[in-house]
């Protein structure tokens, strides 16, 4: 009896010990955050095998929105972060850096870092791609291909247009761009909101997040709307009736970057994982259909849809429309509240 109790206690202690030790072992896999959709797939199929071949280490991919990554890192601040590598759009990245959640990037341990043009380098980690947005439409129901955002306001698309809320960078960049075209700036969003209010009769759906937005084209809920270049092309490759065009007024775009998180369990593996992502070899493969990931490594030739739709070369990327995300972050809370108030049923 006594020995049984003892062994039970030992077992308990051992179990608790294992749980506490958690990911402390040297053989722990790298845990890397990734976005859902295109990014989760392309990183699983291209980056992870390349990284494992290079280092022999394994990777656990954790699918999370940028905001979820920041929330989890904030909650774990000072302790053991739940993942080693973060992937963030420009706005959230600036937030995470200023909140002290991101470690400095050790570029000495990242040979591919020097192959990036300076605008894709940062002390906190490299930009791994650019995301560009434009107009997606259903070619079966929209006979005249749209050319600019203004087409979304056409009366024939009453109740057929889809956008996302400001929770997604997609919706935020759309609002920033119509604001820019209406004469506003990042410091003055009122022209953009005034313009957006006039879109209300045409709106069929305002998705609460990017994931829900993607399904709308597939189910024929909307005929035309704002969409991310990569995602639209991926849907098209899957046979969904969808076509993507750049607005004639310029293509809004932003950087997506990868970072080693502060206090990462595997900082060296994390650096080498990010380095693998920015090698010419991996980016060349990611640029192929159906992924069409815009490369940031200067040694990668612009080919396929990236070349024909977005830019012929790295210089042309500079002509896309960019926003001041530091300024955007200051007002995002106010805009979200205003969006809640004005874009209602």
């Amino acid at each position: 009896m006594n020995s049984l109790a003892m062994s039970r206690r030992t077992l308990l202690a051992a179990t608790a010990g294992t749980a506490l030790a958690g990911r402390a072992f040297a053989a722990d896999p790298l845990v890397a955050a990734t976005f859902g959709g295109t990014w989760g797939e392309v990183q699983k199929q291209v980056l992870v095998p390349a990284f494992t071949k290079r280092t022999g280490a394994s990777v656990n991919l954790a699918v999370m929105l940028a905001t979820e990554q920041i929330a989890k890192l904030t909650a774990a601040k000072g302790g053991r972060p739940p993942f080693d590598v973060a992937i963030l759009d420009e706005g959230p990245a600036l937030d995470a850096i200023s909140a002290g959640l991101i470690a400095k990037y050790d570029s000495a341990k990242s040979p591919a870092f020097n192959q990036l043009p300076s605008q894709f380098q940062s002390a906190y980690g490299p930009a791994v791609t650019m995301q560009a947005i434009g107009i997606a439409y259903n070619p079966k129901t929209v006979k005249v291909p749209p050319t600019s955002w203004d087409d979304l306001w056409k009366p024939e698309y009453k109740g057929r247009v889809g956008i996302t809320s400001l929770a997604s960078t997609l919706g935020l960049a759309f609002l920033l761009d119509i604001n820019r075209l209406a004469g506003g700036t990042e410091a003055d969003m009122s022209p953009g909101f005034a313009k957006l209010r006039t879109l209300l009769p045409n709106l069929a759906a305002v998705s609460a997040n990017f994931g829900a937005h993607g399904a709308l084209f597939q189910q024929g809920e909307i005929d035309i709307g704002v969409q991310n270049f990569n995602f639209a092309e991926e849907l098209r490759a899957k046979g969904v009736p969808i076509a993507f065009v750049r607005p004639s007024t310029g293509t809004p775009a932003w950087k997506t970057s990868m970072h080693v998180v502060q206090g990462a369990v595997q900082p060296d593996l994390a650096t080498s994982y990010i380095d693998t992502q920015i090698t010419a070899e991996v980016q060349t493969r990611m640029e192929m259909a159906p992924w069409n990931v815009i490369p940031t490594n200067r040694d990668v030739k612009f080919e396929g849809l990236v070349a024909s739709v977005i830019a012929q070369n790295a210089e042309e990327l500079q002509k896309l429309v960019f926003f001041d995300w530091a300024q955007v972050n200051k007002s995002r809370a106010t805009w979200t509240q205003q969006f809640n108030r004005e874009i209602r049923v």
Partner: protein
Amino acid sequence: MASLRLAAPLGGFFALFFVVPLGLLLFTSTQAGRQIGGGFSLEQYAGFFSDTLNLSVLWNTLLVGAKATVLCLVAGYPLAWLTVRAPARLQSVLVFAIVLPIVTSVVVRTFAWIVILGRNGLVNTWILELGLSATPLRLLFSEAGVVIVLAQVQMPLMVLPLITSLQRIDPNLGSASAALGAGAWRTFFKVTLPLSVPGIVAGTILTYAACVTAFVTQSLIGGSRLLYMPMMIYQQALDLQNWPFAAAISVIFMVSVLLVIASLVAVSRTRAAQAAA
């Protein structure tokens, strides 16, 4: 003493994983500014109540929950009644069918509803073919859609307590009522319904609490133009990283739902007391 010790593990579990987080939530909600550590302040609460948008979101959430719960009750009661009356073999089939939704993820069920309620969905195809409407109805991204889906998704929470309470009613009471000359409807309203009130109250509380907090269903079926409290909490906590305000609206929401439930219980108690007297 022994029973107290038996309850200790669960009590400890609750203390650790329910009471402590709840205390943390309360603490966070009384912090000034956008970060924990801003010092004690009630500004988050003041901020919530000073904006009519927030109040209308709270009201809409409580209301949509009430509508879905009523629909659940109206549709679920006959189902529960039928299940109790059914022959044994059919009864087990019915109970299985009622429980089945619980074993499927709520996300999957909600996406299935998107397919059913969509413009090209099942419901709209029928409506168009039957000539009830010339154009597809807007069911998705509307409050009606949210109510319908909430009612289906949460139905088991209503029906199971109803079945339990209907089963407890002595069938002889119905026979006695009939023998005394009451018709089927009169027997139902005078005997069955009053005796099933405990089931109705239990089912209503469970369903209501589940409906108002159903983040997935509300946001997927309602979209961003129908804003409810869970989405608002998510926005503040995740999109905007404003934890003190998110905590404050969580507390306000929790208290509001508790008040609704408490008044429901109070009303049913007075009713029960009146019936007894």
